[in-house]
């Protein structure tokens, strides 16, 4: 009977269908309706994808069909007939008949007039609004009804029949008729016949064959053919099912009214959602209430932004703002104005500050906000709340903030090499970036060393040069001046030996400076040996403290609090800085994002592949072989260096000979890492970071065993042999010899690095590109370069005692290295093919610098100070048994001159000389480090536990949700065997409740 209604009604409205609507009230209310249902739809879709139906039912009146009508009516072509329907819909008395009408309207296949309309639409002679509808119809994905169904299906409540439906929907040819069908299908009681029909419909409601079928269905008149009987029975069943669906809807509405939490079959209900929204994870950082509100409101504004074509469309708002927090109560308010008024009233009930905040954070368009504001503030003579309340405070706040931002950006722009580092990091990833960051850290360390030494030692000595007889500068031959200069610069001998550069130049005297005029001259005594001792000691001490501090700091920073989980999505959506407007910065930013994404991707993709036993054995064999080769070559090399130094120590010092040992050592440093790389290529590690760590370890072993041998050579052979007066009657100065040697090492290392950069990177690139015709560029070798840096820094520290100005050499070296490596990278190298994220690379470098490097140097320096006799003929510590005696002597003298300072002597003898105290301090220090490490370990364990707990909480949540859902599902559904006539009854029941509800 419903169908007959529809059939009767359609001709009435068809003639008017194409006319643009003139009836404003009708339009308004339709629009309102449209909004209601759509927003309810979208509400659902922006929450957990399950709300739609529920909110639709909350409204009480909106069946999926209404939406279709609305879209049809949206363009303003309202005819009186439609009004009627729409009114009926508005009342909530939706009978299936109306749905049918609406199908008829929408479908365009029932009446010829509509068909005409459609062809007109396709002809292109239409208003934009119509076009939208048309496209909506054509692709089927925009119409809300489809969305709803789809989400419903995807919600997990998919019965086989529904799945079919889904495929039908995905085809995009869904007409409202299908919706009906679908509701029937959703019910679960799908007979195979219905499915057939549905598949027939699926084919597209535009094709004539299906039209026939549809009209046959709807009109109740049976089309000739084999389907005759079937269709008849199906129609009946369909009717029944529609009735059932309606009644269920009505019941559910009733329930929802009673419990004030609407209920949906096969979906997450509002209660579930409420629970969900109260979950701690949902309310991180913001109040859940507001979240709920914004969830709802998004639909609202989306509605405006996306779907509205008519400019004079008046928006509706539907908030219900309660006293504390905001809750949305979707109600069926007839007039949009009423709703707005209601909202305005709610706003009025709030405190004014709250009101403005609420108004501002509503995601609706500004004109709407303004009307709302007008309504809300009408009682207060339209005064701005702002001007009364918070202007000063807010402005001040903003100014302060701007100031802060400006100063921050200024501060960050002061950082050394900020821009080039940024660019490098963007293009080559964090691994390469960590190398350059490390380089910068080293540079800062050296600047500090230079500052201390330069200010307290070099400057006073340079102002007051030692007595001329103390040193013996050679007289250079004029013609060979340039050559001499060059040689002395390379080797550290010649004139350079007699400058502040080396230990031997410094005097053991006290500089007496007087100032303050002639009447009462004040004399300040500056003891050079003391200055030498203390400036070196303090420089080392502070460096050590800073190193240890930065090691612990960097480990704390690299501590994996958030694992890579969730980073990709965040990178994708939150990483782009919308503030950036400069073209180059935009390019850098996108480069940065792609590099970081690649690194993350490599982490995500990295998996240990399963290997067979034989393969594993093979792999072990390779590893063994590789390690044997590496260790063997290192050992041989070190042995070679040892014998070489022994041999060179016996020969006469000659300029050419001086360069042999540094040259050979640097040569080894150049080629052995290449061998290691070759070996590691053979090993074929699957993880790039493991490969890197292995490479670092091998390089470290090589460099530090060589340094160990050299230290032994210097302290064990050179120092005792060159302490006194040598055969030619000159004062030999072993400190100078060692200092010069270190200087040469540093220089040679630098030269070989330059050579490597030029030949290994630049020429190799040319060679491989021109000759081998390969597109690939060499990859920047992080392990090797970092180890070179550490090696250089170790040399610098070793040399600090003998060559106070060696930090200058290192500073120059680092500066040149930075620019050279940077340009070489940009020109010759490519980003690694296996990008990976070096989250704690910097901390590894720093700790390498701290542990073998700094610690070794500290041992070396302390050993020198305490146990080796300084040369008797030169330097500030001449005539002293050990270097640290200078301090002792000074304390004695002070005590002699001033009895009040006797405690200083005591302190010195007991604290500095007594090894017990030193052991105690070192022990305490070690204990602190140990406790720190333990605490860190404990924290890590706790963090693991917490993460586990979070995972379990998630599981709990899922379990609870499914339980809740089950409970809702188990609630009694109406018996399916209802007579056809009941559908009317059902809608009446529903109507009643709606009235009650409103």
């Amino acid at each position, binding site marked *: 009977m419903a169908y007959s209604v529809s059939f009767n009604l359609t001709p009435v409205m068809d003639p008017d269908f194409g006319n643009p609507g003139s009836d404003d009230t009708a339009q308004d209310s339709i629009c309102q309706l449209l909004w209601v249902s759509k927003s309810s739809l979208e509400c659902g879709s922006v929450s957990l994808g399950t709300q739609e139906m529920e909110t639709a039912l909350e409204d009480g009146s909106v069946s999926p069909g209404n939406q279709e009508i609305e879209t049809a009516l949206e363009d303003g072509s309202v005819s009186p007939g439609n009004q009627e329907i729409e009114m009926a819909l508005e009342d909530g008395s939706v009978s299936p008949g109306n749905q049918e009408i609406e199908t008829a309207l929408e479908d365009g296949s029932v009446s010829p007039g509509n068909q005409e309309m459609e062809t007109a639409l396709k002809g292109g002679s239409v208003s934009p609004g119509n076009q939208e509808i048309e496209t909506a119809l054509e692709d089927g994905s925009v119409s809300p009804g489809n969305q709803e169904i789809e989400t419903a299906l995807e919600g997990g409540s998919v019965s086989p029949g529904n799945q079919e439906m889904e495929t039908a929907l995905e085809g995009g040819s869904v007409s409202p008729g299908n919706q009906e069908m679908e509701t029937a299908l959703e019910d679960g009681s799908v007979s195979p016949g219905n499915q057939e029909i549905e598949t027939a419909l699926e084919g597209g409601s535009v094709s004539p064959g299906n039209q026939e079928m549809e009209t046959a269905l709807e009109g109740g008149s049976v089309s000739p053919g084999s389907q005759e009987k079937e269709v008849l029975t199906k129609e009946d069943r369909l009717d029944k099912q529609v009735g059932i669906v309606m009644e269920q809807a009505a019941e559910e509405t009733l329930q929802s009214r009673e419990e004030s939490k609407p209920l949906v079959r096969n979906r997450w209900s509002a209660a579930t959602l409420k629970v969900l929204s109260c979950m701690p994870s949902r309310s991180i950082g913001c109040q859940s209430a507001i979240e709920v509100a914004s969830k709802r409101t998004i639909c609202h504004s989306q509605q405006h932004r996306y779907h509205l074509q008519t400019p004079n469309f008046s928006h509706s708002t539907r908030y219900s703002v309660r006293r504390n927090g905001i809750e949305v109560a979707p109600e069926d308010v007839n007039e949009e104005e009423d709703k707005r008024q209601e909202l305005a009233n709610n706003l009025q009930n709030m405190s004014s500050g709250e009101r403005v905040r609420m108004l501002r954070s509503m995601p609706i368009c500004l004109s709407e906000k303004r009307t709302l504001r007008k309504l809300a503030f009408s009682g207060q003579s*339209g005064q701005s709340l702002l001007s009364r309340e918070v*202007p000063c405070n807010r402005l001040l706040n903003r100014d302060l903030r701007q100031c802060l931002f400006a100063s921050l950006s200024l501060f960050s722009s002061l950082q050394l090499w900020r821009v080039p580092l940024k660019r490098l990091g963007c293009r080559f990833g964090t691994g390469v970036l960590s190398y350059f960051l490390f380089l910068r850290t080293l540079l800062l360390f050296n600047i500090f060393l230079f500052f201390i030494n330069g200010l307290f030692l070099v400057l006073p000595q340079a102002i007051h040069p030692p007595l001329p007889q103390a040193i013996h500068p050679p007289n250079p031959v004029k013609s060979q001046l340039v050559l001499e200069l060059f040689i002395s610069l390379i080797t550290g001998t010649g004139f350079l030996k007699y400058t502040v550069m080396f230990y031997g130049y410094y005097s053991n005297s006290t500089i007496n400076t007087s100032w303050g005029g002639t009447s009462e001259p004040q004399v300040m005594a500056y003891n050079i040996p003391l200055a030498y001792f203390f400036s070196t000691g303090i420089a080392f001490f502070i460096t050590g403290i800073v190193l240890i501090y930065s090691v612990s700091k960097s480990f704390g920073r690299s501590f994996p609090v958030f694992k890579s989980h969730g980073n*990709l999505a965040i990178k994708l959506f939150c990483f782009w800085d919308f503030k950036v407007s400069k073209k180059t910065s935009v390019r850098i930013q996108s480069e940065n994002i792609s590099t970081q994404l690649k690194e993350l991707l490599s982490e995500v993709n990295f998996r240990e592949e399963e290997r067979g036993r034989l393969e594993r054995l093979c792999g072990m064999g390779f590893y063994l072989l590789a390690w044997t080769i590496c260790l063997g070559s290192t050992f041989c090399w070190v042995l070679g260096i040892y014998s070489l130094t022994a041999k060179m120590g016996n020969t006469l010092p000659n300029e050419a000979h001086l360069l042999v040992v540094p040259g050979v050592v640097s040569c080894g440093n150049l080629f052995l890492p290449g061998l290691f790389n070759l070996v590691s290529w053979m090993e074929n590690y699957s993880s790039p970071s493991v490969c890197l760590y292995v490479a670092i370890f091998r390089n470290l072993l090589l460099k530090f065993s060589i340094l160990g041998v050299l230290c032994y050579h210097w302290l064990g052979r050179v120092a005792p042999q060159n302490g006194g007066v040598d055969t030619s009657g000159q004062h030999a100065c072993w400190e100078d010899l060692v200092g010069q040697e270190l200087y040469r090492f540093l220089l040679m290392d630098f030269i070989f690095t330059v050579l490597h950069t030029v030949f290994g990177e630049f020429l190799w690139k040319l060679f491989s590109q021109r000759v081998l015709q390969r597109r690939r560029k060499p990859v920047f070798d992080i392990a090797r370069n970092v180890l070179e840096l550490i090696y250089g820094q170790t040399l610098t520290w070793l040399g600090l005692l003998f060559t106070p100005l060696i930090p200058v050499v290192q500073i120059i070296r680092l500066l040149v290295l930075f620019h050279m490596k940077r340009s070489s990278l940009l020109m010759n190298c490519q980003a690694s093919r296996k990008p990976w994220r070096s989250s704690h690379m910097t901390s590894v470098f720093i700790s390498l610098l701290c542990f073998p490097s700094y610690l070794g140097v500290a041992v070396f320096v302390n050993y020198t100070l305490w146990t080796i006799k300084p040369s008797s003929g030169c330097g500030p510590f001449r005539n002293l048994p050990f270097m640290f005696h200078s301090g002792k002597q000074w304390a004695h003298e002070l005590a002699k001159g001033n009895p009040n300072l006797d405690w200083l002597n005591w302190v010195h003898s007991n604290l500095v000389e007594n090894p017990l105290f030193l052991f105690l301090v070192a022990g305490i220090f070690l204990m602190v480090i140990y406790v720190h490490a333990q605490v860190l370990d404990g924290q890590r364990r706790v963090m693991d536990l917490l993460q586990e707990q979070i995972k379990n909480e998630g599981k709990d949540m899922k379990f609870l949700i499914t339980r809740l859902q089950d409970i809702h599902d188990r609630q009694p559904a109406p018996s399916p065997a209802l007579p056809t006539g009941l559908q009317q009854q059902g809608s009446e029941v529903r109507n009643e409740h709606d009235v009650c509800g409103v």
Partner: protein
Amino acid sequence: MGNKQTIFTDEQFEAYQDCTFFTRKEILRLHGRFHELAPHLVPMDYTNEPDIRLPPTLTVTMPELKENPFRQRIVEVFSEDGQGNLSFNDFVDMFSALCEMAPRELKAIYAFKIYDFNGDNFLCKEDLEKTLNRLTKGELTPEEVSLVCSKAIEEADLDGDSKLSFSDFENMISKAPDFLSTFHIRI
């Protein structure tokens, strides 16, 4: 209001101030910027609220938006007609939502809409791919793009529908501390 000419009435100013995060001065400046975009179209006098909409071809030439990979989407999202034609109200609204005072929820809503290219209220894989291609300017291979997108959906999708709803998005945003500072355009 210091000009000889009246641009806005006091009432308008108050309305703007209450509805947006801007001060009087900033609103005037915004008007200036809006006027700059099309001096012949936009009048100086806005007291009678003329309904003038600037097409997206004009608005995206602003230096603030010019290099933004999402400029088209931004103007579309904030325009009332969805086509990118901005009225002055929309214009103010846009910068209000993107200013630093706007709360996280509001920003999240608009960010979601900007990234939702096809307007289906979900961030599906296509949306993500479009976003990613705009972000990286085609530096990733199609396989990588697809992989990143599916991984990202996998990470952020809570309800298992293999697309991101607004709540998924919001939840993800809540884990990103710098979202507030990045989703921000200074004007």
